[in-house]
């Protein structure tokens, strides 16, 4: 039988507020355990939450950027359950009335096909603390630094039909929240993570199959692997005559397996009810308009502009706008009056390749936008050739200074002096009597040989265009 996969994602994006969603404690990552937890975060008797206006603003930005309904009346609710790293015995979240309602986002697949993925809702909630099970001799350590960190939970419709689509959607949201500067997108620190609801059904069947929820997946690679693994498992279960049960499963990246955490029957009754300590969040048109004005240029708009104003190809524009950091870097480079196409080629080519190889992100690129622009200018003014530029780039990468410094220090300056080039040409011709004879007797292909020898002798520094013209004249 042919099977169809159905996937919906719940993405948790940690909002980049300075302080927590309901207290004034800092949200900075990596501090000593329990040093960034105030009385409110500890859930001490008598404390009360006060909502962080910045978190509301960030959620509003997301809603506006995805064309979603931003709800003018949303309500915080308590999700009640006991866990040691949940200090109050309930998590403040939003249930019936979330701040962001229905919307959608377009994704592009590898084969160039575009697809629209529905966003069901996005709601604000506080994160829990962390339980540390190691190093406490049979006890559990609790770190409440993360408790109260604002999260935006973005829930998609079950619109994705493959792990690849799920990854494309997750990347798109990942890029968007960074464009909006509402989330740092740092997956290693858990600032961006997701749960995946996965089910399978015979192709052509209308009803959804029973789904399993895969918890807390924190990398694009793991999302793809975990979903594919789960799809295989579900198909195996059904083909063996069994039934998929509704349950929560954990993806274990080390063992490369998903395993059951709890079944539907074991699921908590969270006893949601509106939090009486917090008033409903009421937003008016003036506020929405004010926030709308602060929205940055979004990826699709930016890509379109790169095509129309900079004459880049749609493909290049798509790559350069895939992340805000990359786009910002690119725009910084061309702001130094460098040809956009040349800059795009370098960014997509050598720069990206080197970053990938060294596993670095563009924000950690050792070559600054200004240095890269400086080098591209030297290509444009013929000081160096494109080939020599690779050496210059290497030098800059290794911290040897800007392009001019590297060119100077390594003597990479292009030779453009006619007499100097002529001397080299003469030397090559003098050293290649056989080739000369063959060329003159009609073996045109050998022209390339002469060019190569000239370049070699000049250590790549001779201006290729001049070499071409002058050689042609000499060999007439």
């Amino acid at each position, binding site marked *: 039988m042919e099977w169809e996969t159905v996937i919906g994602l719940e993405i948790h994006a940690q909002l980049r507020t300075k302080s927590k969603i309901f207290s004034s404690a800092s949200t900075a990552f990596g501090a000593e355990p329990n040093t960034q937890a105030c009385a409110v975060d500890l859930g001490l008797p008598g404390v*009360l939450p*006060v909502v962080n206006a910045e978190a509301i603003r960030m959620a509003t930005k997301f809603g506006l950027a995805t064309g979603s309904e931003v709800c003018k009346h949303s309500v915080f609710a308590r999700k*009640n359950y*006991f866990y040691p790293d949940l200090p109050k*015995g309930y998590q403040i979240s939003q249930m019936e009335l979330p701040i962001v309602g229905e919307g959608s986002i377009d994704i592009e697949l590898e084969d160039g096909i575009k697809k629209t993925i529905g966003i069901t809702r996005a709601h604000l909630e506080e994160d829990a603390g962390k339980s540390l099970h190691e190093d406490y001799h049979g006890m559990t350590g609790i770190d409440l630094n993360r408790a109260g960190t604002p999260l935006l939970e973005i829930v998609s419709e079950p619109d994705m039909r493959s792990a690849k689509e799920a990854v494309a959607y997750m990347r798109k949201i990942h890029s968007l929240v960074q464009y909006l500067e509402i989330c740092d997108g740092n997956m290693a620190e858990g600032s961006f993570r997701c749960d995946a609801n996965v089910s399978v059904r015979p192709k052509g069947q209308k009803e959804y199959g029973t789904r399993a929820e895969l918890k807390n997946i924190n990398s694009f690679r793991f999302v793809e692997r975990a979903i594919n693994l789960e799809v295989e498992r579900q198909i195996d279960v059904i083909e063996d005559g069994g039934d998929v049960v509704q349950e929560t499963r954990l993806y274990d990246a080390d063992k490369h397996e998903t395993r059951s955490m709890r079944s539907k029957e074991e699921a908590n*009754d969270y006893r949601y*009810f509106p939090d009486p300590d917090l008033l409903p969040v009421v937003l008016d048109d003036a506020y929405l308009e004010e926030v709308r004005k602060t929205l940055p240029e979004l990826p699709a708009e930016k890509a379109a502009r790169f095509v129309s104003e900079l004459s880049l190809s749609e493909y290049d524009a798509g790559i350069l706008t895939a992340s805000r950091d990359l786009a910002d870097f690119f725009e910084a480079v061309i702001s130094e009056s460098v040809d956009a196409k040349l800059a795009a080629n370098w960014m997509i080519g050598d720069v990206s390749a080197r970053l990938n190889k060294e596993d670095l992100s563009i924000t950690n690129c050792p070559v600054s936008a200004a240095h890269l622009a400086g080098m591209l200018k030297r290509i444009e003014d013929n000081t160096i050739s494109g080939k020599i530029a690779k050496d210059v780039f290497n030098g800059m990468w290794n911290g040897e200074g800007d392009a001019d410094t590297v060119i100077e220090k390594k003597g990479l300056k292009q030779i453009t002096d006619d007499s100097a080039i002529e001397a080299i040409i003469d030397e090559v011709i003098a050293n290649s009597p056989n080739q000369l004879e063959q060329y003159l007797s009609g073996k045109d292909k050998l022209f390339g040989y002469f060019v190569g020898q000239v370049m070699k002798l000049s250590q790549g520094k001779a201006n290729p265009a001049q070499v071409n013209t002058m050689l042609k004249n000499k060999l007439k």
Partner: protein
Amino acid sequence: MYHTKTLSELSAMLEAGDVTSVQLTEHYLQRIKDHDAQLNSFITITAESALKAAAQADEVRKEGNAGPLTGIPIAHKDIFCTKGVKTTCGSKMLDNFESPYDATVVEKMQQAGVVMLGKTNMDEFAMGSSNETSFYGAVKNPWNTKAVPGGSSGGSASSVAARLTPASTGTDTGGSIRQPAALCGITGLKPTYGRVSRYGMIAFASSLDQAGPMAQSAEDCALLLNAMSGFDPKDSTSLEQDVPNYTAELNKPLDGLKIGLPKEYFGEGLSEGTNEVVKKAIEEYKAMGAEIIDISLPNTHLAVPVYYVVAPAECSSNLSRFDGVRFGHRCEDPKDLEDLYKRSRGEGFGEEVKRRILVGTYALSAGYYDAYYIKAQQLRRMISDDFTKAFEKVDVIMGPSSPETAFNIGEKSDDPISMYLSDIYTIAVNLAGLPGMSVPAGFSEKMPVGLQIIANHFDESRLLNVAHQYQLKTDWHKAIPEEFK
């Protein structure tokens, strides 16, 4: 002696230099020492810090920076977090809890210069109407030490009635200031919901809880309310509204005041003695020029059932933080996490608290939520609408604070329903978020009876004015139980 004076009189004496704060504080600490064994109205006495604060207050006065409350000793209900002092909420769960911070009310009172004598006894987590559910034992009524003082602010009411302190703070979720004030013969005021910050006040039912003053007179309450009230950025439900000077309108004449008498407050269940006293008080108002108007609050009978869904639902969630993990009682040698939770909570909470957590958990459960919690919220709105309509016709509403005078200790402890009914006249006021007061109006069989006065939202000035005018004409609020004179 000093303790026969009202807070306002003491304030004038301090101002005149007839007494120092240290002298007053020593006097009241001595009274607590001499008499509290009979009453059990205090859980913690902070003699040392009180004397220090009193000396400081005297300094402030010398420097000419004293306000009306500078150097006045008071007690705080043990529901308010007080920095560095045990804060128990009347529970074994918090027997070992020392708060690292001050409640906003405590902070504001401190800024006004009051001297804290100690923390008063209360029903566990403010759940009770008799002060019998306290882990620290029952509090006794100074008018008859076999009787209850009411609750949950029973320790505050009892200590003020016995003049062990000039005044005390209390909290009122369903009548916890007004009912004990009535049963102990003192004046107590529950402000409009949102008037006084709830920050640092250990939550019972967040949408109902409100702190207020308990003292000997309306004038005293006005002075205290001036210090307690105001917007607090730490409490999202506190209201950003200007606080008037509550003493300013005390002396307004009552000519033409329209008093509504809801027929539902004078029906079945009201004791004959209380009825007589309250009616007599109403006659007094008539004599002062007020107009009496019969009104109806038709949904009054729903108040107790609605309250006993909403309050337990909120409390079941509010009390989840007492889990033995970070503070409070933790059971010995827990086997595992579940054992830690079960035994810590099982041992730390008393019967009434457990009963309400169970009721509330049930009311919020999947499948029951709509039938109980949502339904209760709808009815709550109807109860509130009754008052809105009534206040279109009248300025204040009057009735009894409690259906009967103080009952005996143990009399109702095994009958929660009959206990819950002792708040039948006060609960609707919390559900509607209105301000309400209880004022001593006389005695029935030697036990005090309280007159309840209810005003519209943020009309505390009117409440205090109406109560003060009555107290200018009567002496009930000056009565002191024989043994404590």
